[in-house]
């Protein structure tokens, strides 16, 4: 059940999206709308999505956020969330990310699943996800909460499209049956220095369970994950803040590397 009016949802969507587009900080919206529900928060996110589509942008994938224990502890929340990826979020492997277009970006080592069959919750489990997965590829997400100092609660972050802003996907694809997804290791380096390490199980015990959770959360709104969807599973490592001039490389066990540079 929502507590906000359609006008309030539209205003808050504009408020959050403007902060994204113009790279400025806002205070968390639950401060001004304490009565906001999770449904309201997702309504705001879906309204931001419609605003982008109306301007001609294409939605190119979905992302899960706050899926690792490291991340939930870092942000003080207890449940994951999802967001969407717009076409202009995509940065090629080895490409440049303009730091000035963002507020206080951080990077996270992730994996992406690309589906070959639709997934519709409720009741989607890891087995369904593995069966519906065309391939897995490495991906790095750049997150950039529009909230001041990354201070938010779960409802506010959902309304802010789960801090989505940019992503870099790598050039290696593998069938999920060729990978040990629970134990797959990642090493995140900034300017050649190892900053974070982790393994797939950091994401909800198994990377595929993140995709299952996305299908089940979307199912609550009557939505599904269509075949051919690119889905980032959430961070395997804690997020690392980056400055202009920093370059990063994430090395994956059996999946190559992903790199980029902040300019």
């Amino acid at each position, binding site marked *: 059940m929502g507590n906000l009016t359609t006008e309030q949802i539209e205003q808050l969507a504009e408020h959050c999206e403007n902060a994204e587009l113009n790279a400025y900080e806002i205070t968390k919206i639950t401060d001004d709308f304490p009565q906001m529900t999770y449904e309201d928060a997702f309504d705001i996110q879906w309204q931001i999505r419609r605003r982008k589509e109306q301007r001609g942008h294409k939605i190119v994938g979905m992302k899960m956020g706050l899926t690792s224990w490291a991340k939930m502890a870092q942000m003080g929340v207890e449940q994951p969330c999802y967001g969407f990826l717009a076409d202009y979020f995509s940065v090629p492997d080895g490409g440049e990310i303009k730091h000035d277009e963002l507020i206080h970006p951080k990077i996270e080592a992730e994996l992406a699943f690309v589906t070959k069959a639709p997934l519709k919750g409720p009741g989607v489990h890891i087995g369904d996800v593995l069966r519906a997965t065309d391939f897995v590829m490495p991906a790095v997400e750049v997150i950039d909460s529009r909230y001041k100092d990354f201070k938010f609660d779960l409802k506010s972050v959902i309304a802010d499209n789960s801090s989505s802003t940019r992503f870099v996907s790598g050039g290696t694809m593998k069938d999920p049956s060729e990978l040990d997804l629970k*134990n797959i290791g*990642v090493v995140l380096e900034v300017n050649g220095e190892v900053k974070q*390490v982790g*393994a797939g199980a950091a994401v909800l015990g198994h990377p595929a369970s993140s995709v299952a959770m996305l299908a089940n959360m979307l199912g609550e709104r009557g939505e599904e994950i269509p075949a051919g969807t690119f889905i980032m599973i959430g961070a395997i490592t804690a997020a690392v803040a980056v400055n202009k001039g920093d370059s990063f490389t994430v090395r994956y066990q059996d999946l190559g590397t992903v790199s980029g540079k902040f300019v």
Partner: protein
Amino acid sequence: MDKNIIERCGDELYNALQHRETIAPITERYTDITLEDAYHISLRMVENRVNAGAKIIGKKIGVTSKAVQTMLNVHQPDFGYLTDDMAFSQGEEMPISERLIQPKAEGEIAFILKKDLLGPGITNADVLAATECVMPCFEIVDSRIQDWKIKIQDTIADNASCGLFVLGDNAVSPRKVDLSTCGMVVEKNGQIISTGAGAAALGSPVNCVAWLANTLGEFGIPLKAGEVILSGSLVPLESVQAGDFMSVSIGGIGSASVRFT
């Protein structure tokens, strides 16, 4: 440090080990103790074990993560000796309440050597060429120093805080696995408590073994064929007690588990 004091400290640590007692930090009593003094104490401690019938079967490398190096304010690892009475098998009960004082578990990769390695000048390639196989491993570290209040010299003198270890259920050629990116998942009592990857130990566990070969090489001591080398923790240390069950799995290598009694 005077030779008599070195021997006395080594004997004191050995007695603490035997009687499951802790002693005050050595660095509090001998403030001028050097790293070399500390290694001589460690050697005296292990000589006591060998005189009592234990056999040296390998070495362990410690202080390999940036977090621990920062905590101890050092920029290099340390090492200790492994004896046969420290080794446990996969799935076996480990009587920590009888053997250890203040145990902590760490997940590691163990190297089994097929050729001697004598530094200096040992490179990563030499280590890989001399490695028969790598295995998943739990090392249960312990400190004979009160409340783990260790400086680097204390832990070196105390045989690099070595306790007991378990080798896992699989052995893999180093040709088959990327030891820098291989992931590690540690579970305690059925719950995932940490994940890591090979690079957590000096960028790669192979670097750790090369460091040890080169460090010992300065004293003319080789790593020997057949020895087991524990290459350093890839995850944060976890305190354990009797009744706990832990397992570690490493991508491309296998898993190890241990039940504490």
